[in-house]
């Protein structure tokens, strides 16, 4: 199928120019924009070369698709990146809302808007897993696939994460691979998969070690750096350049810890973010750092599982470990399972990272989060005696709640707290 790559081309070129601007003006900060450029470069290249285009919901393992030589596109990661570039995503949200109610999570309706616009690349196939973590993802993907006749494969992800579930999902990966092979004519190269997995594991190792370094007071890593690393892990796991990038981030942070330096001159408040973020303006992080000395030391979105993927000769073990990975993805495991599990983790992370406050940056479309917001707040207060600021926002659409309003809520919160 011919693809209109205009939008991807534009985003890619914009990111490239930001990247070279950084190189010239702020060479020591250029690393912040490297992952997104790489991501769009891969999409751009793949589509330009005419490789089949596979859209997948982010809670699926990109490692498999990388070993099938198809172009992968996670609309969720792309939505986050595009939202940070200004108004360019808004029309896609509006287009989607003609077909799907506006209370459904914006990041999930984004693909509906992209496809409806006809301006951008139409996927050759869709893959998603129900309900890992939410209904909105599956409802958007399945209805879009149905209406636009896009071949799709849905995995059934059980609520309970245990050995039986990992085997069950691992088996479904085998069926999913067969489906992708049939649809695209590409084959899964198991040797290549093992190689991708080794890169992914290495990246994960550095990623988790970097997370650990943030437990130090002061934290050696900036809030923005933390957020970008989390997104990049989702979009680029298994890509050698990303492994190198995250290794560099870890080494830089390690050096700072050894010197006793923090990411900002004076760390006054340590924040842990749960739920979502403010993707449409990551400048919120610097504003918090500069105005209040408030550094984000952890985000639940960065809480990647610690188990490495299996790269053995046994294919079924590999699929099972990929199942383990996706069922324990951040957001995936938090939204899919019981609230107890989610709340315990919020408390544990806040405690481990010595947080002074928790930020519940709640996406207005994320029902599983808001349905227990009160419980989360109260439980954190009871367990650790620290406050939680719950803000209703749309991480990708500033028209719902503007940055000014969000800042005002923070200002009021810190006034009470500090």
């Amino acid at each position, binding site marked *: 199928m011919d693809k209109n790559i205009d939008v991807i081309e534009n985003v890619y070129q914009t990111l490239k120019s930001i990247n070279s601007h950084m190189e010239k003006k702020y060479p020591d900060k250029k690393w912040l924009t490297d992952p997104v450029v790489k991501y769009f470069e891969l999409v751009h290249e793949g589509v330009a070369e005419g490789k089949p285009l596979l859209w997948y919901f982010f809670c699926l393992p990109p490692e498999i698709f990388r070993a099938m030589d198809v172009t992968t596109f996670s609309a969720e990661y792309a939505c986050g990146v595009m939202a940070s570039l200004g108004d360019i995503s808004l029309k896609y949200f509006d287009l989607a809302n003609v077909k*799907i109610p506006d*209370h459904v999570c914006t990041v999930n309706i984004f693909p509906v808007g992209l496809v409806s616009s006809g301006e951008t690349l139409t996927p050759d196939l869709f893959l998603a897993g129900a309900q890992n973590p939410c209904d909105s993802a599956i409802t958007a993907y*399945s209805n879009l696939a149905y209406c636009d006749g896009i071949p799709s494969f849905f995995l059934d992800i059980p609520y*309970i994460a245990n050995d039986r579930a990992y085997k069950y999902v691992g088996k479904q990966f085998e069926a999913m691979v067969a489906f992708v092979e049939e649809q695209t004519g590409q084959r899964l190269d198991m040797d290549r998969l093992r190689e991708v997995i080794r890169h992914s594991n290495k990246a994960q190792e550095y990623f988790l070690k970097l997370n650990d370094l943030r437990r130090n007071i002061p934290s050696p890593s900036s809030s923005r750096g933390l957020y970008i690393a989390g997104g990049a892990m989702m979009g680029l796991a298994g890509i050698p350049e990303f492994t190198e990038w995250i290794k560099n981030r870890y080494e830089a942070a390690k050096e700072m810890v050894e010197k006793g330096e923090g990411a900002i001159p004076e760390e006054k408040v340590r924040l842990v973010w749960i739920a979502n973020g403010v993707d449409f303006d990551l400048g919120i992080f610097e504003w918090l750092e500069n105005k209040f000395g408030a550094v984000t030391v952890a985000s639940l979105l960065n809480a990647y599982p610690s188990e490495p993927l299996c790269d053995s000769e046994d294919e079924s073990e590999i699929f099972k470990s990929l199942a383990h990975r996706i069922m324990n993805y951040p957001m995936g495991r938090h*939204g899919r399972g019981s609230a107890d599990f989610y709340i315990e983790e919020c408390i544990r992370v806040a405690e481990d990272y010595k947080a002074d406050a928790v930020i519940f940056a709640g996406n207005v479309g994320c*029902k599983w989060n*808001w349905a227990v*917001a*009160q419980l989360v707040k109260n439980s954190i207060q009871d367990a650790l005696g620290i406050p939680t600021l719950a803000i209703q926002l749309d991480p990708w659409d500033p028209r719902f709640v503007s940055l000014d309003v969000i800042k005002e809520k923070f200002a009021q919160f810190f006034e009470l707290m500090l």
Partner: protein
Amino acid sequence: MAADLSKMADSILNPFVENWKKQGKPVLGFTCSYVPKEIIHAAGILPYRIRARGSGERTMGDVRMSQITCPFSRSILELALKGEYNFLDGLVSMNSCECMRRMCDNWVSEIGADFFHFLSVPYKSSAEAVEWFRHELDILRENLEKSFDVTVTDENLRDSVNTYNKTRKLLRKLYDLRKEKNPKISWSEIQRVVVMSSAMPIEEYNTQLESLIDEVESRNGINNYRARLMLIGTPLDNPSNSEAIEDLGGLVVTDLSCFGTISFWDPFDSDGDPLDIIAKGYLNDSRCPRMPGRGGERHNLIKEMAESFDIDGIVFERMMFCNIWGGETMSLEKDMKELNIPMLIIDSEYAPGSEGQIGTRVEAFLEMIEGRAK
């Protein structure tokens, strides 16, 4: 006698449940049409589908679940926090939708439950999914046996399947009465009667239903209506909207809704391993859009019903903040347009008094249908 059923649907507790409790027998609440009532029933426990009728103004439910989640779930929580569900001996929940399962999380955290079981119900109907579900059912069976000190034999399960199959067949018979040109029973009555199928002992329900069907035969038909309608959508345990539609001359003749046909339509097989039968019976049902990738099947069922019930239009009632049915809008609108079936979408806030607000839109919809007929 049968008229009682309809009246009883307006409150959570009813004399049948009270009587059951008086005998010292347990009642378990369940949350979704995909929870297999048969297993609970086979353990000698009354499966009671929790609902929100009569919740009134919400305060506690909204504070806990915020105002941007499913109002039906919030209303259930409100009732539970007010103690209206204190007669339950526990809950069986499942991954129906985010809001409902989170409602249960709040319930368990605040009120507690002597017995709580979560079923991981697949979203697919493949052989592997059936096997997974069968295993889940076995775990539920064991948990019930252990917690309530009972034995659930295959024979018990088979009996339960047969009993519920009888209900399914009787309800189909009841619905068939709506196929007539001048049906003898109103839709709001049917809605209430169907709700009762999961709110009282099923054997007594079947008896009541049989006599209701006989009794209806002797009634006069309804003939002053303007259009035959089908209702589609989220949990509709509250017939107020249907009454508002009926008052305006809309004759609802059938539905594809959570408390309606989604909960009973196709009888299960009766031969073979009972857990297998139950697992397949539930998963084969694609009526609820919680089952992804089966929109085509679902819309074909709508088409078949539209033909057999001779409908003129569809009223699609969506619960506010329901992702599953909200997303379904996209494909449903497309397919109904292609089938040339007019459809009115109503967003339900599940709040007292909100049904009055649909009048103008229903009136305009009925006029549009009448205009098409000319």
